[in-house]
């Protein structure tokens, strides 16, 4: 079942929380809505779920217009940020809630609840209350509850935001596994964390200031970001102003062999880990170093570009230049792409 948003805008009072979002999510596809807080990504999810009413635009599920339907009539599974497990109901009753609302026969409810708890590995917690569960366990129950009604669309609103770093990594793996368990379900995954989007999404929709900035398959968006915002928000790329000369480009006066100029694209985008130190590159000065265990991150100023600082990730086994040292950075052409400068 496809989810289709057609020029959807949402106002909260006079605030424009979502501006003209058009987006299609196919059955079996995972689309991540990625953006900083206030970018409208949660509002978009709430509009699909029916928790807020669009001020204009239409929302369709499998072609049927549901814009005026209340959430109860949409049949969408929703997992919210703090999970919202009903605190007065046991885990099994939480999972059974949607089935009972649909007046499912009792035996069927029992069977399906058991199946769902099995799927998320929470069978032995069926009689617990939500407050007796850890964050990760609550998340599993919330997912089981949402999937119990066999929705064709699953909406996940920052499902990992409430967990600590270690657990987040584990649950990311669980979510990947879950994805394979429900191959036909369309999933909309809202997050501000690029690593979740990269790990889970087929396509990533980057949002900012209530608007969709870019949408594309994850690998494409990462390799050749269409905009400066996407380049830096997704993977923290360095952005360096370039000068063109004929077909070629220069950074701070240094020719970049192999990079072709494109009209209207004045910024060179390169990831911190793609830059190498070597000879005959762009001269930079190290102003800060940070050891991060598996790598060292250098922050450098580029001679001749006083406004710009460059981040370089060096593998941990390479020697770290001293603070203030002058080094030369090599920008491999295959890791470079050009993006338009921001016009605000």
């Amino acid at each position: 079942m496809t989810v289709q948003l057609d020029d959807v805008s949402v106002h909260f009072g006079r605030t424009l929380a979502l501006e003209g979002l058009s987006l299609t999510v196919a059955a079996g596809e995972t689309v991540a809505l990625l953006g900083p807080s206030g970018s409208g990504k949660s509002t978009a999810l709430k509009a699909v779920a029916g928790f807020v009413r669009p001020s204009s635009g239409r929302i369709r599920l499998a072609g049927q217009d549901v814009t005026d339907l209340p959430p109860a009539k949409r049949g969408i599974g929703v997992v919210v940020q703090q999970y919202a497990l009903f605190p007065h109901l046991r885990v099994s009753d939480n999972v059974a809630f949607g089935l009972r609302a649909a007046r499912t026969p009792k035996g069927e409810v029992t069977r399906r609840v058991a199946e769902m708890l099995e799927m998320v590995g929470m069978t032995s917690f069926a009689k617990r209350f939500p407050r007796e569960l850890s964050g990760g366990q609550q998340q599993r129950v919330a997912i089981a509850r949402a999937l119990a009604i066999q929705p064709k669309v699953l909406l996940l609103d920052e499902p990992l935001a409430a967990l600590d770093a270690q657990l987040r990594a584990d649950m990311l793996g669980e979510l990947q596994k879950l994805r394979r368990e429900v191959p036909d379900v369309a999933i909309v995954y809202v997050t501000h964390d690029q690593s979740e989007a990269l790990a889970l999404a087929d396509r990533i929709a980057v949002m900012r200031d209530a608007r969709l900035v870019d949408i594309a398959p994850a690998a494409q968006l990462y390799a050749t970001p269409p905009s400066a915002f996407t380049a830096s928000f997704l993977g923290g790329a360095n952005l360096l102003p370039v000068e063109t000369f004929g077909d070629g480009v220069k950074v701070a006066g240094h020719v970049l062999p192999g990079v072709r100029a494109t009209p209207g694209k004045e910024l060179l985008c390169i990831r911190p880990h793609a830059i190498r130190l070597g000879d005959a590159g762009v001269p930079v000065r190290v102003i800060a170093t940070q050891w991060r265990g598996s790598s060292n991150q250098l922050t450098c100023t580029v001679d001749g570009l006083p406004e710009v600082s460059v981040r370089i990730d060096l593998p941990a086994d390479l020697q770290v230049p001293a603070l203030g040292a002058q080094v030369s950075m090599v920008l491999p052409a295959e890791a470079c792409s050009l993006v338009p400068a921001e016009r605000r």
Partner: protein
Amino acid sequence: MLVWTKPGKALTWTAFALVFGVLVLAPFIVVIAAAFAGTWNGVLPSNPTVGHLQEALSGDELASLSVSLQTAFLGGLLAVVVGTWGALAAHGAPGPVARVADALHHLPIAVPSVVVGLGLLVAFSRQPILLNGTKWIVVIAHLVLMVAFSYGTVAAALQRVDPSYADVAASLGASPARVLWQVRLPMLRPAIASAAGLSVALSMGEVGATIMVYPASWRTVPVSIFALSDRGQTFTAAAEALVLLTATVLVVFTLDRLRGRAVEQ
């Protein structure tokens, strides 16, 4: 604030105990002492007796207790139902309407109970609704006064409940009625129990409106106490006050247990 020195701590606590002992505890101790006093001419009472307490638990005075309990439960609990419903209705309302509803409900706090009593007296002393002289005018007075407190308690709790719960319940296919009965109200149970306790307790002690509207056949305990004291029967009044205190504490304690259980469950 950590007071780091031992004498500093001791001083703070002594001052605290003195002021609050005098201001808060003293009246109750005096009332209890008077309830059992045969005579009280010096600094301390003398000739202890349970005679006043026997008086307070017989005849007209016992009837008063029954009247007070009926009024408190009828008026107080009705107020909880109306207040809860009002809070739920106002919660979903758009901004300006919610603000008006909010102001409306808080009006009775700024408004003296005698004014409420007077209003009811004037309104219900003539056709089309003649309630003056019946117990219903007392019950309505308590209802009007307690609605504000119930509303305030429940509305405050509603503010703290994440709307996600109701949203998620709806997304699971639950009708608005099912969401209300199976999700929203159960989550408000502690607040509702607390509102019930508050309403009943305040109702048990209400004087201002009651004294304006009560018929001779429906005299609450606080009014009896006033009448006894006014006639100079101070010790009997004190015994009656002790009965009222005990009844109130028992009722509030019982309602509080309900709330405690709701939280634990």
